[in-house]
């Protein structure tokens, strides 16, 4: 293992062509339409730590997840995995086995026709990590135990398990190739809070025990606070703030980060009056000019409507906002 970051994301973008078929386009005299799902973002994740990405639906979180495990190629920019270009790393099965992904939906992500033992063993077989039925069976038993299930559960099918148990199976499967880096896309969003607590505790425990590095994706700020070392806030395909977890919660700088925090229902019941952010996330096909948050931002001025803010150092983090830069926040 090297001392550098596990993952480096350098000005990465992923654009999608969402144009109508060419004939329709000619008739309607329309140009091509590009959706900028991720539009030039940079961050890195030091080995053994957790970076979380938060933001509202459609802001590009899952697209980033797919970019960093190589399910999508970047439209531009570069992803380095342990110092090596991701495309190269993906071509080498030993390198590929070092990264795994856990998805949001524990129902859709497990093959319903396979027994749990075969689901969990799939990466072991694909990467030829062990030979012989016995050895594989023993390893699967070990993995199931590690995630709080019983080795006997291996003989059952996914439908025989609850949502939380299925997510445990996904985690066991992801761990079966002994990965060092796990990308977790909303791993608890489909689960009840009580089950979520079990899964989050398990993930933290595994990180400590196995020294895992996590890219953790969620729209739930309270969840993110529990698991992250650093947090990136996304809005319309861009990172607008990146900071150590505690700083982000104690001193959120970007107006969008503040709005997100304001919007969370207050469980402590202090009677705090919440000010909902007005408006909605604009379409990523035709984002507003300048700062894309300006139609919803209480601090927007003329500069914000024309000039795109870039990420600049602010305290121990980075923020892309003119108001923060001008110190009028």
């Amino acid at each position, binding site marked *: 293992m090297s001392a550098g970051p596990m993952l480096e994301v350098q000005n990465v973008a992923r654009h999608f062509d969402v144009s109508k078929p060419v004939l329709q386009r000619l008739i309607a005299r329309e140009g091509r339409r590009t959706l900028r799902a991720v539009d030039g973002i940079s961050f890195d994740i030091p080995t053994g730590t957790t970076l979380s990405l938060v933001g509202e639906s459609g802001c590009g979180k899952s697209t980033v997840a797919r970019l960093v495990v190589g399910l999508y190629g970047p439209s531009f920019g570069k992803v380095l995995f342990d110092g090596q270009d991701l495309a190269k790393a993906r071509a080498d099965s030993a390198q590929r086995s070092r990264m795994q992904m856990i998805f949001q939906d524990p129902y859709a992500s497990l093959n319903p026709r396979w027994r749990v033992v075969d689901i969990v063993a799939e990466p072991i077989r694909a990467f030829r990590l062990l030979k012989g039925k016995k050895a594989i069976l023993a390893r699967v038993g070990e993995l199931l135990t590690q995630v709080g299930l019983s080795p006997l559960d291996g003989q059952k099918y996914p439908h025989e398990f609850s949502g939380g148990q299925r997510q445990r199976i996904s985690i066991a499967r992801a761990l079966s190739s002994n990965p060092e880096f796990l990308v977790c896309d909303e791993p608890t969003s489909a689960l009840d809070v009580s089950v979520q607590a079990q899964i989050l505790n398990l993930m933290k425990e595994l990180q400590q025990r196995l020294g895992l590095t996590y890219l953790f994706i969620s729209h739930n700020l309270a969840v993110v*606070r529990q698991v992250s070392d650093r947090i990136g806030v996304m809005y319309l395909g861009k990172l607008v703030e990146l900071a150590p977890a505690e700083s982000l919660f104690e001193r959120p700088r970007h107006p969008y980060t503040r709005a997100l925090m304001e919007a969370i229902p207050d*469980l402590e019941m202090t009677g705090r009056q919440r000010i909902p952010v007005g408006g909605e996330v604009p379409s990523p096909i035709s984002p507003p000019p300048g700062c894309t948050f300006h139609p919803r931002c209480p601090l927007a001025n003329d500069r914000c409507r024309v000039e795109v803010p870039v990420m600049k150092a602010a305290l121990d983090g980075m923020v892309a906002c003119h108001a923060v830069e001008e110190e009028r926040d």
Partner: protein
Amino acid sequence: MSLLQVKNLRVEFPTRRGTLVALDDVSFEIAPGEVLGVVGESGAGKSMTGAAIIGLLEPPGRIASGEILLEGRRIDNLPYEKMRRIRGREIGTIFQDPLTTLNPLYTIGRQLVETITTHLPVGPGEAREKAIGWLELVGIPAARERIDSYPHEFSGGMRQRVVIALALCAEPKLIVADEPTTALDVSIQAQVIAMLKTLAREKGTAMMLVTHDMGVIAETADRVAVMYAGRISEIGPVRQLVRHARHPYSQGLMGSIPPLDRRVERLQQIDGAMPRLSAIPRGCAFNPRCPRVFDRCLVERPELMDAGTTRASCWLYAEGAPA
């Protein structure tokens, strides 16, 4: 008098392998203008309770015993047509997915106007004005221009607001809302909750708000019912329930919510999982997971009883419980 009374409601699903009891002895009331939050893990019976009230239990599910009364009148045994009229006029409904409620083929305006003219004594012109008024009230910008849009031309958040307008426009006395904000982003969620609160206050509409989001409940509800395995395990004022839950399950549930204001090394967790309907344990259904279980819990099923500030179905609050 209560607007809605649910008394000893039992819902059963006959299956080949025997009868499943989905709701068992569920009782609660809602006063005019009151918001009752209903929480619990998925499968606890929250939606089932809502469906029974509005007369839309999916067959073969059926009310096996108990009563549901709206303003003192039984509504659990009405013929379909009668119940359908009550559903639009007196009880409004809001479901999780706005797309299933809105008809994609008709404009927003047409759907609102139809609902209004069906239930209120007004002509089409006046109904259209009312419809625009409702759209403005639920926060659709430029409602007059957008009333003739189709559902797909609106974003998810806007569609959910239209669904709310649709539920409210016949001016019902009770709204049954099942996870109305679950599909929405937090920023939109906050807008919708603020709106529902204002409406309940200004129009005196009572609401049964089903959700598994305790934050939403804490902000919106007056009282809360916690459900577990088809029963109410605890019911009481929101403040008491959120801060000083009495039932061990509610305590576990509240404890497992990740705090926003600090980081904890390990979240409190309830081990195990909720039992399936076909395998509900004898005695207290929570007993295999309960940290305070004692001998009585294994044999006798607890009813709701006085637990100080709330009512809980837990033997800890009966006489002779271990200290």
